[in-house]
């Protein structure tokens, strides 16, 4: 018996799998040690006078809180610049622990897990283009969802199907504090976006 050559092994598997994109799979319930990091929602440098808080709940089709969703945020800086900066997960090279952003660069990226009550909060600078992009992951969600938080009315919202544009408009609760709930399903279902 001659063992199969390693190359033929690879060729065979390549035939069966095609060349398309790698499929999505759910984030599951056990990402807690891997993905969230301390200060994940603190994009604004400490003491920034124009910092805003955006917060809300994630709810399922029964209206119940989703306690194991993971939200990611990507946004422009106050000047509308979308270059971002490294350092969202800045680590201490001695211990490997997350040290937090350096307080100078605006990384534009945030990551927040919902708490036991489905609540999340982001402390950031106002995006120059008026909105914050959101990516939603959760157990039970086989493929993530994209949406946007608009802090003020935007013509884009008028292009959305009847009346649904308001699901992307954050409610201004008070100076510098905005509320944005995400409904995965149901009457108040949030508009989710597809970038092709």
């Amino acid at each position, binding site marked *: 018996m001659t063992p199969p050559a390693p190359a033929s092994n690879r060729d065979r598997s390549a035939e069966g799998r095609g060349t398309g994109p*790698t499929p999505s799979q759910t984030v599951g319930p056990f990402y807690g040690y891997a993905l969230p990091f301390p200060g994940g929602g603190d994009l604004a440098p400490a003491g920034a006078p124009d910092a805003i808080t955006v917060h809300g709940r994630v709810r399922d089709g029964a209206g119940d809180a989703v306690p194991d969703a993971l939200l990611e945020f990507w946004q422009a800086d106050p000047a509308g610049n979308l270059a971002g900066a490294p350092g969202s997960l800045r680590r201490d090279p001695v211990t490997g622990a997350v040290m937090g952003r350096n307080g100078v660069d605006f990384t534009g990226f945030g990551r927040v897990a919902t708490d036991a009550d489905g609540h999340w909060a982001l402390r950031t600078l106002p995006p120059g283009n008026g909105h914050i992009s959101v990516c939603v992951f959760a157990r039970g969600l086989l493929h993530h969802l*994209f949406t946007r938080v608009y802090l003020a009315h935007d013509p884009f919202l008028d292009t959305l199907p009847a009346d649904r544009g308001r699901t992307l408009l954050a409610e201004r609760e008070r100076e510098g504090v905005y509320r944005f709930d995400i409904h995965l399903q149901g009457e108040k279902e949030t508009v989710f976006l597809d970038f092709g």
Partner: protein
Amino acid sequence: MSLTQADIDREIAERRAAAVPGDHPARDYAPYRSTLLRHPKQPPVAVTDPEAAELTGPVFGVTDVTALDNDLTRQHAGEPLGERITVRGRVTDRHGRPVRGQLVEIWQANASGRYPHQRDDHPAPLDPNFTGVGRCLTGDDGEYAFTTIKPGAYPWRNHVNAWRPAHIHFSLFGTAFAQRLVTQMYFPGDPLFPYDPILQSVTDDRARQRLVAAYEHGLSVPEWSLGYRWDIVLDGPAATWTEEGR
């Protein structure tokens, strides 16, 4: 009445027979019961704006990872139990271009099939020398590599006698936020594949095969570890910005 594997098998077969071609799982995939209340019922709204913010994305750098982060066997005082493996591959976009300098994060159960998470009550031992979390940045050719141990299969409560095949969770970034991917890598030849509604949610046979790593003997290190290769192709967006030097 409790849900049996036979019930789930029937549902999986029905969904496969009715499947429309596609690379990703449908979000409304009932054999995985947690989807029921968590999938939107409205279709997503297509955004074709060539200047959409989501065509750019977060960047990461040398401050975001440490040199040890891609070796999950060296994060504690002692060595973890289990079969030491290396997993290597390349991350490319839909056009085959390497995704350079981007963040790859992984997490997994230990060799006994247990996560260090308070809500994992599978009565299998925790390993004090294994957390099961790693990260790295892709290289100039989109390459990544992790040293870890082979995770165990574990039970879950989707239905009676539900078991997840061994898998490693992967999180990936492209140059565009719209390329974001969270997925799971499986090991070749796992007998649990046909029973698992999460893997079977990818109804296209070839797409599902792309979630399975290949054992590659040339990647095994003598007297040390077994080698697997798993290449990853990030989907979307249809129009990507070309970024030099990223």
